[in-house]
């Protein structure tokens, strides 16, 4: 065997990045070359090990709270203080300093008030866009894999109890579903690090994922006036809803109205 697989090819193989033709050629080579097969295995092991090892540093709760406060509250107050201090420190007259400080403070507060509403809506949009991306990615991964759901059942009395002890919350499934909608099963999953139920439905030939997670206040934008949000992402419709205890997000390429009907029905079942 003279031409072994390149390190780049082995890496791309481990990363699932080879095009169909390259993959076929590579597989043919691997079938005949124990050395490259061994190296391919090592590449996969190394990738997996680095994935685990690389997940190492976690932000403190204090830091997370601080960032949340800052991006939800517009300019940080320290920024205002710093602005005032820097203006006043170079003035000879105390009265002038205070006047200047008050003026700066007044202008700053004005800016903050103007920006506040924009920031709130921008924050909500950023959070929702991130959530929609993650939910879409998971939905696509579910569609791509041929794996069966962890619990396969069209019976809500089977699916709901399956989550007992797996989730730190409970939820209800609607008695009746919209016409043509079938419950296929469910998976236990994680949405931005929190445990969630992924309910799998079919509407005709369209697959739907509905994610339910415990309301935390920092997931879906709960401070937005509108409780329901929708967005189109990568060709999929994403529809979010909230109840008093749960956040929900539904993803599918089905007609948005039918997706919304299903989501609304699930939301109502929680009351």
């Amino acid at each position, binding site marked *: 065997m003279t031409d072994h697989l390149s390190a780049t090819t082995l890496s791309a193989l481990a990363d699932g990045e080879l095009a169909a033709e390259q993959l076929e050629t590579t597989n043919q080579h691997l079938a005949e070359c124990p050395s490259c097969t061994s190296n391919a295995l090592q590449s996969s092991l190394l990738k997996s090990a680095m994935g685990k090892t690389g997940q190492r*540093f976690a932000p403190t709760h204090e830091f*997370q709270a601080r960032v949340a406060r800052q991006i939800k509250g517009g300019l940080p107050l320290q920024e205002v203080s710093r602005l005032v201090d820097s203006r006043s420190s170079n003035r000879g007259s105390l009265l002038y300093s205070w006047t200047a400080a008050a003026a700066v403070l007044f202008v700053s507060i004005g800016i903050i008030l103007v920006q506040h509403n924009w920031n709130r809506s921008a924050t909500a949009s950023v959070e929702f866009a*991130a959530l929609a991306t*993650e939910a879409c990615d998971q939905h696509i991964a579910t569609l791509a894999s041929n794996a069966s759901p962890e619990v396969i059942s069209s019976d809500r009395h089977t699916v709901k109890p399956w989550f007992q002890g797996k989730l730190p919350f409970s939820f209800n499934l609607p008695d009746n579903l919209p016409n043509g909608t079938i419950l296929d099963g469910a998976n236990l999953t994680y949405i931005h690090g929190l445990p969630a139920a992924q309910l799998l439905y079919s509407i005709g030939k369209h697959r739907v994922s509905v994610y339910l997670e415990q309301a935390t206040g920092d997931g879906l934008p709960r401070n937005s006036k509108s409780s329901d949000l929708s967005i189109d992402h990568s060709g999929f419709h994403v529809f979010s809803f909230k109840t008093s205890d749960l956040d929900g997000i539904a993803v599918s390429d089905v007609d948005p109205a039918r997706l919304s009907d299903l989501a609304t029905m699930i939301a109502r079942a929680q009351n």
Partner: protein
Amino acid sequence: MPLLPSLYNIAFWLCRHATDAEDLVQETFLKALRGFGTFETGTNFKAWIFRILRNTYLTSKSGLAAKRTVALEDELNESGESGPSQYPEAAVDWQTPEMNLIQLADQAALQEAMEKLPAPLLEVILLCDVEGMKYKEIAMVLGIPIGTVMSRIARARASIRRALKGEWEPSREIRL
């Protein structure tokens, strides 16, 4: 906060300091908020915000220090071509799978090896193996051709393997 843990993890790996990592993440979020109008709905949000993090890192103190290094061999392959020929294939002379399994199980050794990676190699590995990004997304975050992403990932893994074998070559400088 969505993506905050992921952003912080990458920031810490790059800065190697908790306070610097916090500053970097904080600035990233503020920039993301300010520039949210430039984000195109329906495009890859994760890649977009990681790109902001990475660009912010490049202008930070630790990022500027890392940026000063230049690598000859990477330069040869940065033209946008994948250039797999740079890695003579049979040159991948690894140990027995059994030995490697044992070494990979030693998480401390792997951590140490990752810490020794130069920033350009570390960042592609973190984005690929930890964040699970595709090459196209990584290219978007780093602003480099996909071929360069491929070669850097291969080099990073080769470096890690060498380090695990105790053959670390410390100063292979690479441009960010």
